[in-house]
């Protein structure tokens, strides 16, 4: 579904290519596609409408800068507005601080608390955790088990019913530590007594940061909830959790705009190390379901110069291991293959999924293996017999299976490229790329 959206966005962008003046109809189509993509990603309806109006207005009113074509101009506006929408990533200082965690039930506060503790610990800081969740059964066991695994002190009392008392007692016991993270019970904005409780905890703990934990799947409700939390304790950072699912995290944007803060971290897995700093570009490409928008803006063609890959030879089906080697080399500059392919104007062409399932480490292995091949083998991979496979494997310090895998991968690639040619009929790939990049 989203792939389709991404490509329709691209189609809309393509219509702008080669125009000398900004075409109102094309911009409107682009904005409509953008709206659909963002709404599907749970971005707040009002934010989406504001954004699309701004894009429409700026595209049509702003004068075209010299040396920039229409498509680049509009693309840049879209990108700038999107970055505006999500603000800069919130700041994370590596010093003494007290962090108060807040959020709805089941948004992942406790798991995130442990991940954060791990994050700061790895940065060389002494970390302690206070468990102020006195309500949910098993909450203390959960956080103390997680903390024990990474050797971090955890203060709490499973029998104690008063969260404030725990915080009051816990803070002195953590006096020698640099980072103190206070995990709290889940609550939502309509529970007044619980909101009062977190206000009190905030006052007592004199927290330096108050971070709101938002489930990536949270929908339109996000802005309302964030607003109330912000009113209560002045949220200064947002953490998006469960980004390893299929949810797009658009709800978190509403939270950012309500709290005028930024996204600090993204949780993307169940183990304690699955916490990343926020990266706006990756997030935008996920929201829109299309390749890296900034790479597009910054003229991706700089890295794919025609000397790197002989595109036309590839399209004629003369794709050798040597070409693949070059391609793998340029991959280091370009990012994953899927993104490259998604930046190419191939329309709705189907590329076999297996082609993409190659990680960067694997790519490096492949390059090493290819270094052990002779020139003749690189030019004509059909030469590679099983005894040659043995030799190459020995030379590269790899197993024969890995060499076979590489050859299989090469064949898939070759087939995929043939498919590109067959599906598109007669077209000049290089010209396409040029036109695409403006």
């Amino acid at each position, binding site marked *: 579904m989203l792939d389709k959206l991404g490509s329709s966005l691209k189609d809309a962008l393509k219509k702008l290519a080669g125009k000398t003046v900004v075409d109102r109809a094309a911009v409107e189509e682009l904005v409509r596609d953008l709206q659909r993509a963002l709404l*599907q990603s*749970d971005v707040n309806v009002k934010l989406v409408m504001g954004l699309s109006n701004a894009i429409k207005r700026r595209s049509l009113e702003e004068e075209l800068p010299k040396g920039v074509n229409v498509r680049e101009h509009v693309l840049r506006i879209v990108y700038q507005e999107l970055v505006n929408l999500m603000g800069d990533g919130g700041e994370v200082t590596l010093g003494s601080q007290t962090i108060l965690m807040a959020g709805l*039930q089941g948004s992942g506060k406790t798991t995130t608390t442990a991940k954060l503790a791990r994050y700061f610990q790895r940065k060389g800081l002494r970390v302690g955790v206070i468990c102020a969740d006195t309500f949910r059964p098993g909450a203390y066991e959960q956080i103390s088990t997680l903390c024990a695994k990474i050797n971090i002190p955890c203060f709490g009392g499973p029998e104690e019913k008063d969260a404030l008392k725990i915080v009051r007692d816990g803070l002195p016991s953590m006096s020698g530590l640099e980072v103190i993270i206070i995990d709290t019970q889940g609550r939502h904005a309509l529970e007044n007594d619980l909101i009062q409780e977190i206000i009190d905890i905030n006052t007592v703990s004199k927290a330096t940061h108050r971070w709101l934990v938002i489930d990536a799947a949270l929908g339109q409700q996000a802005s309302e909830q964030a607003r109330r939390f912000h009113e209560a304790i002045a949220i200064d950072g947002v953490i998006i959790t469960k980004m390893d699912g299929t949810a797009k995290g658009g709800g978190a944007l509403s939270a950012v705009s309500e709290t005028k803060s930024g996204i600090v971290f993204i949780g993307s897995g169940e183990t304690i190390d699955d916490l990343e700093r926020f990266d706006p570009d990756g997030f935008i490409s996920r929201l829109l379901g299309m390749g890296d928008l900034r790479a597009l803006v910054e003229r991706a063609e700089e890295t794919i110069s025609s000397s790197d890959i002989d595109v036309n030879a590839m399209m004629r089906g003369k794709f050798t291991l040597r070409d693949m080697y070059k391609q793998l080399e340029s991959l280091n500059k370009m990012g994953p293959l899927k993104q490259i392919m998604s930046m190419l104007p191939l329309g709705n062409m189907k590329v076999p999924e297996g082609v993409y399932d190659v990680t960067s480490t694997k790519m490096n292995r492949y390059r090493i293996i290819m270094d052990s091949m002779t020139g003749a083998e690189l030019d004509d991979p059909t030469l590679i017999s099983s005894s040659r496979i043995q030799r190459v494997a020995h030379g590269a310090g790899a197993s024969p299976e890995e060499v076979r895998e590489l050859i299989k991968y090469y064949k898939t690639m070759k087939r995929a490229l043939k498919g590109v040619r067959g599906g598109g009929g007669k077209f000049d790939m290089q010209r396409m790329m040029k036109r695409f990049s403006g």
Partner: protein
Amino acid sequence: MFETLKSRLKEVRNKLDNGINEAEIREGQPAPVPAAEKSPAGGTGIVDRVKVLIVDRELVISEADISEALSELELVLLENDVAFPVTEEIIANLKKELVGKRRKIGEPVDTVVLTALKKALSVVLGEGFDLINYINTHEHPVRILFTGVNGTGKTTTVAKIGYFLKKNGFSVVIGAGDTFRAGAIEQIDVHAKRIGIKIIQHQQGADPSAVLFDTVQYAVAHNIDVVLADTAGRFHNRANLMNQLEKIRRVMKPDLIVYVDEAVAGNDAVIRADEFEKTVGADAVVLTKADMDPRGGAAISIAHTIGKPLMFLGTGQGYDDISPFSPATVIEELFGDVA
């Protein structure tokens, strides 16, 4: 639940009425009638409409009359977390239903629009699910498996439903099938003790299938009516975790698979409900955290996507905070003040 939706729907309804009323005034003027009759080539649409107006004393609703109000309605649904594809479908159906529809001049516009909206929503929300009736009509022990992604409230829901069933005179045993998350076994254990229900548990990291198999064995041996099987939260895009769930299903052979999701979820609700339905199936849905969210669009989205009835709504932190979901009442509530 549904409060915002309700108030916004009212606005749209008014708009819809206005649109159609204006159309009525336009067509009510006698002037274009002879003109239209003289030139049949001027478009069958006008001729038809005029004919209908004169002969049948009815009005035909055209697409232009309602398009603005419908796009307004679309926004309303989106604002209320009804997922994008679901919204589009509802709107398309509504349009199909309304455009070209004839209505008598005297007939209030309300009724036409209202019936269409009501019909669209009641088709989506379906019938509801009577758990007690289900248990009574099936062989005991009735095995109920709870599934869903992380943090939607499966464990709490198991406790609440356990309490609900116990109050209704059934004997219940809970299987602590979440052996993954730290503290999960302690959590369900405390719940079970508080509500006085027997719980079967192994230690953390054990095979959940084994725990739940034991639970079923225990229920058979002790003539217990209902087995409630809790499981660890898992994402639908994790193949091995979904396979584990599939194994659990094979081993404990549940009569009923209950999919648990939260009322505050947005568009993703549709994607994951669909995946769960495809891999392990789902017979009924429980929507938690309905107290957080007066919108309730997720209910419409999920019900529409997997076509399975909504069984319960979780509405708070207490064991009593669970209420059977009745689509008829909800629809009555949404439209009741006008109909």
